Each structure stands twice: as C-alpha cells, then as structure tokens.
C-alpha cells in the first residue's frame, strides 16, 4: 500500500463522505433524465440521423459522393479515422499508465475517459469500413478468415491489415478494462435499485459480492489489464502512423511518425477529455470530484505533448531540408506555401502556439480558457491529419497529376454522423452508467478524511 503524505491537498473537495460519493454519482443514474440531458441527447440523435443520410447515400451511390479524386484517394475519411483513434488514446493512458504510476488524481476522470476511448474507437472504426469501395465485401475480406476462395489470404505486408489487428485488439482490451472497472459500481447501483433496474444492473455487475477475495481479484485483474493496455497506448498509433510511414509519398515517408503520432494522440485525447469533463462536471454538478487540480494536471500533459508535437513538426522540416531530396523538400514547402497553406498554419497555431498559453497558471486553471483551448487543440489535431494526408497527396511526384481536394456535403455528413454516434453513446453512458468510478474515488476520500480528522 502506498503512502500518501498528509500535507497533500485533498483530491476530492467539499468534505465528501463515502456515502456522499454514492449519492452524488448514483443520483444521475437513478433520477429521471433532466431536461438538459434530454435536449443534449435529442440533439445527438438528430445529428446521428442527419449524418446517417450521408452514410447511406455514400453506401448506395459510391465513394464518388465524396470529394476524392484520382490524386487524392484519402482525405476526410482517413483524417477522421486517425483523429478519432487519437482521441481515444487519452482514456487508455489515464486508466492504464496513470494507474501503473499510481496517479490517484486520475480516479475521478478515468471512467469517462475510458468511455470516451470506447466510443471514439467505435467512431474511428466507421471510416475504414465506409471508405472502402466495396464495404460489403471488405468488411470481412480484410480479416484473415479461412475461406473457400482457394488459397486466398490477406496481405500481411499491408499496414492497413496491421491496423485491423491494432484497432481490434485495442478496442477489445479497452472494452474489457472499462467494463471491469464498472462492475463494483454496477453492484452499488444494483444494491440500491428495485424492479427491472435491479435485474439489469444485477446482470451487469456479474454477481459482485464485495468480498475481500473479490476485491483482491478485481485489483489484480485491473493491474494485469493496465499492463496489457499500456503497450497498446503506444502501439496503436504507431501502427496507424505506419499507414503513412511505410509508403513512398513525400510527406508520408517519414521515420519520425510513430512517436510523433503517439504524442499527438495523447495530446488530442487529453483535450477531448477536458472538453467532455468540463461539460459533464457542470451538468452533473461534479465540481467536487473533478477539481481545478485535475484540470491543471491535464493541461500540463497538454503542454508536454503539444511541445513534443511541435518539435516533431520542426524536425520534419529540418529533415526534409537536410535529406536533400527535392520531392521531400517540395512537399514541406508546399505545406507552408502551397494552396493548402491555411490548413498548415491552422495546425501550427492550434497545436503548437495555443497550448503554450498553459504555461500561465492563470490560464491553465481557468475553466473557460481550458474549455476553449481544448477545442482549439482538437481542431488543430484534425488539421494535422488533414495536412499530412491531403497536402502530401495532392502534389506528389508528377506535376501532371497535381490536383486539389474539395470536400462535398457528404464528406462533412459522414463526419457529422460519427459526432452523432459519439455523443449519443456518450450521453447514454452518462445517464445510465456511473460517470465517476465510485469504488476508486471512495478510496481517496478515506485518505483525505484521515487527514482532516
């Protein structure tokens, strides 16, 4: 058991007792949906449906509904894919790596962050399927399934196949990890519930009995899963970056991509966690659980990862110049000064310059500033992927094929669809699942109450 210094500031404020925790968290689950929740959920579902029109049209008519062309074969689809996968990273980082590092402040945010991971990966997974010309076949042909086509097998050389493995592993481990953490809390709700709710939460809690042995097993499995999930935090985006790094296209063909992508993923993931947590905190009145201290901690992570990303950008430029490869040099010149200069400079401003504002304590402890900056960072990270994918493709080796990419309403629509999907899922989660890990938070209440006592 680790020792917590008694001079440490309490992680949960407001002098909450263990019972208060149960009450505060379960209230959201047990009470009737609030008007605000209803509105938010309604908007999400409407967004999902509107987006679905774009998805259905794309599936019915073909990928031609998007703005892609002979030169730019990927644009919003893979941009969105990488963006969503990146967002997912924060959840795993918080729950797995911070667990291993015994960072107790993570306890009040990890549940929502993990939920975000799951939903973000689900959103991300839409794109590899939807972007295929023939998703009805590709959805299973991309898997190494035994088949009756003769000796037909997938191509293990292809980074896209590695993606299939990376994402599916990541998704399953994250899901199990998340669900496991939910089990004791489901049991708490079960114990308080009656009727059908008792049955449902009873089933979800897998017969949790709260015995010491059960708790011991729970802790061990958590640790094992944390150990399993930790390399995944690094591997998933590394493999996603291989889609680009193993190619021959200038601007893609870069060995710096794996660490740079991982840093970027954590960067955008933390920003997204902040965005969501700040809203949840206000709506569910969880100010005592998600404190300014949490926000500040996460902002510090954002400064660090944002700076790593910034250094990566500069390194890319240096290497492009240093390599002496004209195509490479042109690709980076084109990013800054070509027709998509605005995308590049949006990325630079949002990702490199704006997070540096968090050096000021006033800004990093300001909720409004944090909220705005967290959104800016996510915009910037979307542009990062757009810049990498589109500006590298649109002017590659042969000038005869240089072209522009203009998104259509369907490109936007499919992106909107994933937003609808994400928020619908997130609001369902927020209503029906405990948004804060009660069991874990109770453990830090104790240590802080000891201090006050």
């Amino acid at each position, binding site marked *: 058991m680790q020792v917590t210094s008694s001079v440490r500031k309490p992680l949960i404020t407001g002098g909450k007792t263990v019972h208060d925790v149960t009450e505060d968290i379960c209230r959201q689950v047990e009470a009737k949906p609030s008007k605000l929740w209803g509105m938010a959920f309604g908007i999400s579902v409407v967004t999902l449906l509107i987006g679905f029109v774009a998805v259905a049209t794309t599936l019915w*008519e*073909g*990928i*031609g509904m998007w*703005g*892609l*062309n*002979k*030169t730019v*074969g*990927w644009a919003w689809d893979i941009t969105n894919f990488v963006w969503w996968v990146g967002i997912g990273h924060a959840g795993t980082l918080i729950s797995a790596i911070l667990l291993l590092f015994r960072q107790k402040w993570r306890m009040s945010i990890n549940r929502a962050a993990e939920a975000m991971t799951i939903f973000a990966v689900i959103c991300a997974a839409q794109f*590899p399927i939807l*972007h*295929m*010309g*023939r*998703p009805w*076949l*590709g959805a299973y*042909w*991309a898997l190494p399934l035994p088949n009756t086509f003769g000796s*037909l*097998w*997938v*191509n293990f*050389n*292809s*980074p*896209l*196949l590695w993606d*299939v493995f990376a994402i599916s592993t990541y998704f399953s481990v994250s899901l199990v990890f998340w669900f496991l953490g939910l089990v004791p809390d489901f049991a708490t709700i079960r114990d308080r519930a009656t009727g059908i709710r008792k049955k449902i939460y009873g089933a979800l809690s897998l017969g949790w009995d709260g015995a010491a042995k059960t708790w011991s097993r729970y802790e061990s499995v958590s640790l094992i899963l944390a150990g399993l999930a930790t390399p995944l935090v690094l591997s998933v985006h590394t493999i996603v970056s291989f*889609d680009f790094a*193993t*190619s*021959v*296209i200038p601007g893609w063909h870069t060995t710096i991509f794996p660490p740079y992508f991982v840093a970027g993923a954590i960067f955008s993931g933390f920003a997204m966690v902040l965005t969501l947590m700040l809203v949840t905190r206000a709506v569910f009145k969880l100010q005592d659980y998600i404190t300014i201290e949490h926000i500040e901690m996460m902002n510090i992570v954002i400064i660090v990862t944002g700076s790593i990303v910034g250094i990566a950008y500069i390194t890319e430029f240096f290497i492009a110049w240093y390599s002496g*490869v*004209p*195509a490479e040099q*042109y690709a980076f*010149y084109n990013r800054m*000064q070509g027709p998509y200069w605005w995308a590049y400079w949006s990325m630079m401003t949002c990702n490199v310059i704006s997070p540096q504002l968090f050096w000021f304590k006033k800004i990093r402890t300001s909720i409004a500033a944090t909220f705005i900056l967290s959104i800016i960072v996510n915009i910037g990270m979307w542009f990062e992927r757009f810049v990498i994918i589109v500006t590298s*493709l649109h002017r*590659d*080796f*042969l*000038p*005869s*094929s*240089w*072209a*522009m990419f203009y998104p259509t309403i369907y490109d936007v629509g499919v992106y909107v669809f994933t937003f609808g999907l994400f928020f619908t899922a997130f609001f369902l989660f927020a209503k029906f699942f405990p948004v804060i890990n009660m069991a874990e938070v109770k453990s830090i209440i104790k240590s802080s109450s000891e201090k006050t006592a």
Partner: protein
Amino acid sequence: MKENQKTYWKGIEQLTNDAEFVKKNESEFPEYLPISEQGGETNNRRDFLKLMGFGVAAATLAACEAPVRKAIPYLNKPVDVDPSVPNYYASTYVNGGDAVSVVVKTREGRPIKVEGNKYSTITKGGTNAQVEASVLSLYDKERLTNPLKEGAEIDWETLDREVTAKLADIAAKGGQIRIVSNTVLSPTTKKAVAEFVAKYPTAQHVSYDPVSAYGITEGNKRSFGEAMIPSYDFSKAKTIVSVGADFLGTWISPIEFSKQYAQTRKINEHHREMSRHYQFESNLSLTGANADYRTPIKPSQVGPLVAAMYNAIAAKAGQPKVSGGSVSADHLNAAANELWANRGQSLLVCGSNDPAVQVLVNGINSMLGNYGTTINANAPVHYRQGDDMAMANLAKDLNAGRIAGLIFFNCNPLYNSAEASALAAGVAKATLTVSTSDRLDETASAVQYVAPDHHYLEQWNDAELRSGYISLTQPTISPLFKTRQAPESFLKWAGQDVEYYTYLQNNWRETYFAKQSDISNFQMFWDKALYDGVVDFGTTAKNLNYDFAAAATAATSIGQNYKSAGSGLELALYEKIGIGDGSLANNPWLQEMPDPVTKATWDNYLTISIAQANELGIEMKEGETQLVSLTVGGSTIEVPALVQPGQAEGTVGLAIGYGRTKAGRVANGVGVNAYPFITKLNGANTMDVLAGVSVAATGKPYRIAQTQTHQTYMGRENVIQESVLTEYKKDTKAGRVYPKIYKDGKYYKPSKITLWSGHEYNNHHWGMTIDMNSCTGCSACTVACQAENNIPVVGKEEVLNRREMAWIRIDRYYSAANPAGNKKELEQAAANPEVTFQPMMCQHCNNAPCETVCPVAATTHSTEGLNQMTYNRCIGTRYCANNCPYKVRRFNWFKYHDNTQFDKNSSMNNDLGKMVLNPDVTVRARGVMEKCSMCVQRIQAGKLAAKREGRRPVDGEINTACASACPSDAITFGDLNDPNSKISQLLQIEEKKEGEKVTERVVNEDRAYHVLEELNVNPNVWYMTKIRNKDKETTEA
C-alpha cells in the same frame, strides 16, 4: 424348456381371434392412426408440412428473378465465327475526306476495335484518335433506324417512289438538281453519282470540305496548271518549315505525316541526326508543340512571312524577288538559310487556304528543288476536293430559287460549311430535299426525305486516297438498321436496280482488274485486294513546271489582303485533334479525350495569350476561368477563355466542331459553334479573321474540364530528362540524370540499396519503351486503350472532379518562364514554351509500392513482370492509388455502367452501345481500382495462339493497343527476355543469365531512363530522353 414356449397375447382380442383384430394386426400400427384420413375436410400434419415446404420453396423461387438467357446456341454455326475467337477484316475508315486503311477486329460478328492496316503504304499501320473512336459511332443510339419523310418513318419503296417521281418531275421541268457532299474518295461512288447525273442532266455534284484545302488545289492550279494536293514525304526532309500547318494533327494526312516525321526524329548512338523543325503559327498546335523552334505569329503575318521567305530563297536561287515580305519574325532567316542549305531535302508547308500564299509556297519548294524528293506532285492525294466557289454559288442559287432538287450526300452543310446560314435560309425553296445522313442532324432535320446511309463498318466501298492507291471497305457486320448505302440510293433513283456490292465488283473488274496483269483471275484479284485491303498501282511521272509569273501576281494579292502586322486582335480558328470538324461529335470517347495541348475535355474555348489574360484579369486555376464575350464582325458570343502559353500575342484561337445542336445527346450543347466565323479570302474559305475581332471579360465564372491543371514539370529532372542535339552528338548521355543514394560515406545507384530481393522471370518478361522524341502527343493511344479495355466515359462533371478513368494519359509539360526561379516561379509557363509530351501509364514496377500496401492482395505481381489487378478481390481502400508515385491507378467512384446518371458513357449504358465492349476485358464494378494491364488479354491470346502451334510467341505478334495505334512508333512493347525482340535491341539490354534477378539486368542504351529512378520501384517501362534539334538549351521554343 417347455415352460419357455409360453405364448403372450397382445390382448383378449388375440385370444378370442376377433375378426377386427386379425384384420388390423397385419398393419404396422394396429391401432387407429390419423394419417389414414385422406381427403377429409381437415388437413393433417403431413399436409401442413408439405404445403409449408411447397410454399417456402415457391416463395423463394418467386423471389429469385430467373435470369433471362439471351445466348442462343448456333443451330448451324457460321463458318467464320467461332465464339471467343476474333476475326480481322481489312477495311477503310472513311469520314468525309478523311480516310485510313484499317483492320477491324470483330468478335462473334461485332466489330469492337479498329486498328491500322500495316499493308497501307500511306499510314503503315498508324491510326489516330478519330479512327480508333469510330467503332463506337457504329453503335450510336442516335443513328436513324429507318428512312424518314418529314420526320415520320416510311419504307424504302415509298421513299424511292416519291423521290424518283419528284426527280422526274424536276427533270421534266428542267429544274436544277444538286448533290452536295463532302469530298468523295470512292471512285465507284463517284461513278454511281455520274450515272445519276447522266439520268438527270441538270444535276451537278458539288463538294465542299468543312475545313477547306481549296486554296492549295487552287494554288497548285495557278503554279503548275493542275488543281491538286501533292503528297508530301517528311521523312526525307532535314529541314521542315511549317507556316500554320498542323501537319501532325489535322492538316491533310496527319497519320501519314506523323509516321514520316517520326522517322526523322529517331536517334540513337549510331544515328545522331534528326530533322530540324521550324513552326510559325498563331495557336499552339500539336505540330507547333513538337517543333524545335516555334515562332508565334499573327494570322495577318502569314502572307507577308511567306513572301519574305520567298524573297530570301529567291535571292539565293537567283530568281526575281516579289513585292511585299517586309516582316520580321524570329527564326525566319535561320529557317530560310537552312531550307536553302538542305535544298532537295527540305520542306515548306503552309496551312493557309489562300491560293496566293500557296502559290508562293510552291515557288519556294520549287526553288529548293523539293519536288521529286519531299513533295510528289505525281501522286496527288484526294482527301480534300471541296470547291469553295462552287459551294458559294450553290448557296446563292438556292436562295435565288434556281435549284429545285437538293440532295445532301453524307454531309451536314447547315452546320459545318461557311454557307450554313445561307443554306438554312434557302433549303425550303427547293421542291425536293433529301439527306443521306445517318442521324437527324442539323441538315437532315431541315429536309423532306432522309435516306440514311450505312456506317462505314456496314458497307462495301472503295476509296482512292492517293492517285493509284485504292483502299477497300468491306462490311464487318450486317446493317444494324434499315439503312441503305447512299450510292445504291443514287443508282436506284437513276433507275438502276443493282446491289452496290455487285456494282462495286463490276467496276473493279472493268477498271482495276483490267489495269493489272499479275493476277489473271478476277476472283483471286478481288480476294487478294480484300485480304490486303489496299491496292497500290503507283503513279506515272508527269512534268510540272512552276510558273514564276504566278508568284508575282500572288505577291501583289498578298500585299493587298494582309495589311502587315495589323494592330487589332485577330482570330485563328482551328480544328481539335479529337473532335475535328465536329462530324464525330456525338462520340463520347472523342469528347472526353483530353486535347493534347490544352488537356481540356468536353468543350471548346477561346485560347488567349498570357499577356491578354493579364490584361483581361483572367487567371486560370484548376480549370476555373471566365466567360468572355467574343465579337467578330457584328456577332457576339460568350465563350470560356483558356490561357494558352504559346498563343501569339494579339491573337485568339477558337476550335470549330462544337456547338452542335442536333448531333445527339452526347454532343448537343457542348461548346460554341465557330463555323459562322469562317469567311472567304481570295475565293477560298479562311479560318483566319484578320480584323473586327474584340474580346471583353464578362466576369462570369466558368470551369473548363482539364485533366491536367499544372503546366510545368517544376524542373524535376527525375520526371523529364531532355537535352539538345548538339549536346547529344557530343555525349549520348546528354540530359540524363543519375540519382545517387548516400550510404556509409559512399554514393550508390538506387537499385543497389534495397530490401527487395527481386523477381526472376524465367519465361517472358514484358516491358515497354516510350520514345519521348518521337511521341507527338496525338492521343491515338489513349482512345485505342479506351476501346480495347472498356474504359468508361465519366462526363464533364466528373472530369472536373478529376476522376477521368484513362489508363494511359499523355502528360504535357510546358517549360517554365524562369527555370532558375523559385518554386512559385517554376509553376508559371513560359509565354512561348517548349513542350514535352510524356505518355504515362502503369509502369509495372518490379518493386511495386501498390502491391505491398493492398490489405487483401488484390494487386499482385505476375511471373512475367506484370503488375496485375484482380478486380474481384479488390475492396477499394485506394491505398494502392495513394502509394502510386505515378498516379496511374483509377478508381470506380460510381457505377459507370447501366446507370442513367452516366448515360453519356454510351458504350455501357444501352444495349446497342454495349456491343462495342471487348468481351475479353471485364467491365469493372463500382468501388474497385483499375489501371493499365499492358493489355494482358492480348498477351494471353498471343501466348495461347503460339502454344497451339507449338512455338514461342514471335516478337511483334503480341502488341498492346497503345503501341499498335501509335502513328509515330513511339511506344514499343515486347519481351525483354527475348534478345532479338525490338525492345531488347532498343534498350540494348544484356541477355538474361541463368537465375538472374530482374533488378540485376543491365540496360546499355544511354537515353533510356526510369521516371523517378531514385525511388527504386524498378519499372518495366523505360522512357527515352527528349532531344530537341536546337543549337543550345533555351526554354523559349
């Protein structure tokens, strides 16, 4: 034991042996079972199961649409038709005055591909885009299926009866009858027309050409006393000077000239000589793009420039000078000096239709002694026989009511003649009007009777392309519709009921069979002529003397007509390579073929110089431009402007052949009609408007669908490697760039540093070379590929979306205005740029980047070096296309077949159009990737043919569609493992050693290079450096 023999009764009934029991005991179940109750009111369980089973099966069967099988086996198989085995027939493509000897490939009785006839002494197997595309026009849904009277269908008997009666009536009243046609090349047709004229003596045959060469025939008449167009031989010319003649693209006989010209552009280390080509022109033509030195001039300078050239040569030849000729143009003196230095081996051609100018051109060539070497006046060509004066008179007579009968024979003068509006106004004044058009075009819709002619692929005919050279047309399919051959109609109306085939044979028996003595049996003679497709009797020499007195008269005329260097804007009309005069406008392959120079599809546009674009404030970006209002004389039209580097300042260019209103759904409404701007100069039609032209910006945005929007190659020497002849003479490696990769303190060839183990090809190893020196950019290959490989047409919108499907494209690069400038400046094309054409298709990389990234292994490498695409397996991630450094992969963004949204893709969207599809090539589904296969179906067919005969395929027997279409022999395809193949010789590739990997093979030809060699994708396609015959490297052509 006895106790064991007990009998157990089943019941008291057995003991008592009840009669009822005994009866039931025999059956399996003695007690009552409900199954026995049949035919009762209630259905039992088994019935229920039976009914349900039947019901489910019936419902399932009803849900499956039973396929309608239209394939019917032969009861009696035709002798020549074997399913899946193609037949080839020699024939002749004829469209107006254009004719090419071709070989038609048919499958199961359907013509599907047109190729050049190698026996032709004119085109020698070459074709052009229009010839390649013509097979689709056969299956055009807009063709008439029946004769018409006032737009209503009638039968041929009625039509013949009524037309004959009206003709007789006109003849009886002494009314005038005219047959109007384009150039008629067929001697037999001419004979039929003559018989018609004999029957109706007031009839006259008037021919015109949409793009007239009347000035040349008239010029020759004035110079030599004989109205003709001589044949030219560019292959013998060391110096070629062209004043406005687009001889590689549209002028007189471009395929023939491309073949000849290419011979003078072929160089290798043993032959370091090539012709030098000067071009003086207003619009940047295909020919100008290939010139070594190109000078932009205004149309008003053409006459004075030719006069100046005449005087320069006359001074050297000791002939009297003529008046005029005070003009200064770059390279004029150099051109004159070289012409003189290479006299007898030089050639001056001029595209002007002014007889006076042509007289001087003839004078220059006479003084240079080019007649007999590069010009053969003894073998005149017949492609343009139109008489502009006769046509003008016809329009006058018609409007004056002097013409009673008017027959439009396969022509559309209400659209494509200079007299279109006059004819349209007067056509109703004739008492009988007949058209033989194949569709209800602008002319046919204005006449009383339409007697539609066969398509050339449905008919018997002949064509005399050059004096003594006759090419036969034989049908490759029985007529699809109730059409009848026009000369047969003429014969019928002249009272002769004879089948045209018989008439043709009889004519041949009387004329050509009699002319020769080699073959004594007519049937044998006929069969040989049919097999070869061509008969060449040669010509007899005549003595032609140039009349120098004509030169002086001509010069005076020039002095009057060309107010030298007028300051106003001038308009130069021109023909595009694809659409030409507009007669084939309803062919979507030609509409979507990018113009070789502008790379624009589906439009005509005003080409404006860079200077003028700056003046008007027009900057083209991704095809975005403006509509400008063009005023010529009194009329104003709005037309999109296209900024054209190389356009002479003070001039604008506009293509004819567009703005069709009644060509069909593909062509109607595409572009604007420029024919009304054709005027007369010196009695001949002129495409140049020298005065009264103005252009104003309208500010209305417009997008021109270009397949290439970036003009320069950004100084990338790994893409284009070029040099000049003087350098090449010194070093055959001139212009070559050898990339090196740095590793551990040393520089290596890219192929020496690799993770790839390399393939070994033990059987065949297919490869291709492309000689950028002889490629003229004509785009015949692109249409050939489209026809061969069932490539869909996507329409203007999708071209604008940059989604054209071409497997082979021709990249056209202009030199940059400032080649030493920064990256922004490199993007700007020079005002008069050098032009480089680079055909680009799948490079069939041995270390293919596309193959490694496909998640489902849908694109793989063959054992013969081909990069293969398995459409069935493709799931459409497009990763391969992204990772292709050459961007040659094409994705099926939509379903292009059987989709009303793509009805312009007529080869895949109606039953008639689908007949053109090559059954050996899959029509690709939506969502799959496709690309050049190096015509793998042809390779396979060739290998099978050889295998059946127990031999190896012979070099040249297997050829790709692009290579066989190429009129300039720029593309060579073959087996790199065969040391005797043409490609192995060209590349000087060292013979493959046992077990040698492809990556180790050595190519010794210095000019051969791989595009993007530093990537070490190791393509199987090599490019040969572009060498210009210039003294030193400059960017201005």
